[in-house]
């Protein structure tokens, strides 16, 4: 499904601040795989996502999605196939538009006719039903401006916007990190629910190693722009938190420096 070959990205090349964010990275995802990504700060996790989304073009390497070469495809074109939820709840929604207008905007990906009315009765019923699945009471606030919602509620709206037209690839960039633990757990449940229902190919960055091992079907660990560990199946099922941290130290010759990782409780 997603095929990344020898991807390299260097920031501030030929200056004192030169930084290799992605170092000849290769990764291959099968259809329907749910991969969690862990790694310390600056490991290149978000850079990988940005490269896949087209926020910038990589210096070298190839990215193919569903057989199509998207390495140099403009961001707005590839976002037709890729849904992305950010850590910052502000980023994924338009605050001055209502809940249903935001979802309609995302839904317009599936529809033709740019001058058709964005909201009709049938779509509105569809959005309402989709939101009611999440059990957050949002289906009764369809005419509320998204700017008035809490961070968790906004992330739910963003998740629905990214998946109402099932994308070929779903990218979750620490999308629960800015939320309190209870809400964060709830959003993770909703995420699992959506991913399973649509059998979405998903990449999720998480700061929480426990959650990384429990969620999805495969876990990769990144360091200095490279993948240093890639586990799935039985090996992953038996892996404990401490074993994973041990492996990290062995392979990267450093101790995990991300406090948030160890403190996560869900």
């Amino acid at each position, binding site marked *: 499904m997603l095929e990344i070959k020898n991807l390299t990205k260097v920031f501030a090349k030929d200056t004192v601040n030169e930084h290799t964010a992605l170092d000849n990275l290769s990764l291959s995802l099968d259809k329907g795989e749910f991969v969690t990504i862990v790694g310390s700060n600056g490991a290149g996790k978000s850079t990988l996502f940005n490269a896949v989304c087209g926020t910038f073009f990589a210096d070298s390497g190839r990215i193919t999605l569903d057989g199509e070469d998207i390495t140099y495809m403009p*961001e707005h074109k590839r*976002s037709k196939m890729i849904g992305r939820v950010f850590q910052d709840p502000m980023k*994924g929604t338009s605050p*001055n*538009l209502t809940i249903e*207008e935001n979802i309609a905007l995302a839904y317009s*990906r599936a529809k033709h006719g*740019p001058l058709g*009315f*964005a909201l009709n009765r049938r779509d509105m019923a569809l959005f309402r039903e989709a939101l009611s699945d999440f059990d957050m009471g949002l289906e009764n606030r369809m005419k509320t401006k998204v700017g008035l919602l809490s961070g968790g509620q906004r992330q739910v709206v963003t998740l629905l916007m990214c998946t109402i037209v099932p994308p070929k690839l779903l990218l979750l960039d620490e999308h629960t990190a800015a939320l309190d633990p209870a809400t964060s757990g709830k959003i993770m449940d909703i995420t699992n629910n959506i991913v399973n229902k649509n059998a979405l190919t998903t990449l999720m960055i998480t700061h929480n190693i426990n959650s990384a091992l429990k969620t999805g079907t495969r876990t990769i660990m990144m360091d200095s722009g490279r993948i240093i560990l890639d586990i799935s199946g039985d090996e992953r099922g038996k892996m404990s938190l401490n074993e994973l941290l041990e492996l990290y130290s062995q392979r990267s010759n450093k101790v995990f420096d991300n406090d948030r990782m160890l403190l996560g409780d869900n």
Partner: protein
Amino acid sequence: MVLVLGSLELGIIYGLLALGIFITFRILNIPDLTCEGSFTLGLAVSAALSCSGHPYIGIIAGIIGGMAAGGITGFLQTRCKIHPILAGILVMSGLYPINLLILGGSPNLALIDSQTIFKDAAAAMPFLGDDGTKIAVSLIITVIAAAVLAMFFKTHTGLAVRATGDNEDMVRASSINADKMKVLALAAGNGVIALCGAVITQYQNYADINSGAGTLVLGLASVIIGEVIIFRRDLTLSLAAAVIGSIVYRFIIALAMKLPFFDSSYLKLVSAVIVAIALSIPAIKDRAALMKVKREGEKNA
């Protein structure tokens, strides 16, 4: 009575300007100076074509001219990455000689003997009277423009335009070409503004090359007054509010002109002060809140 009717007529026509400014300033979040040039462009095109006997084509051509001007500003902003305000200024000053050329090289043009939409309407509906026709014609044009815009902003494209001003990153991530949306919004806004110029010149039977000066501030003042009167909730109401704001603004100006010491040249100063005060209200509120926190803090110190 003359004062009331005159203000109402001008207020309705300048409501078009307020609609255009609302699109660029409130929806797109850009104070777009193109309007000073596109307003005059609409006015010049409409006056020149009325002079040669085509007032209706004049209005249509005026709109198209304004949309083209807005489109160029959009192109400069998005493709050439020129600062939005500078892009507007470039188009505005570039339009000056073009407008002069359209007016036939002279800085003004009288339409006393030319056919205009207002004279046509007066001839067709004599029972309405002079002011009656003027109000009817301007009301019809402004209401149609507002209705078309209100409908446009409910379409897929319209929604995308609104979201672009609100959260550009999200729009790009939703597979929408944000640059295209900006160009579209600038074209739409300047099209309505040029329509305003096109109608106003036929209304006053006169075109002047300097009519565009100060239109941005004037439009902003109308938009802001409208927002005070109708607290904006949804977009259709906001569009109506901009037109109502324009009418109220005209009444305020007409009343001010009654004062013995008030000269018409003060108008721009008054508009500028209204806009400056209205736009600084959030900062004043923040400051007041901070002062309050400080006072409370000292009590417990």
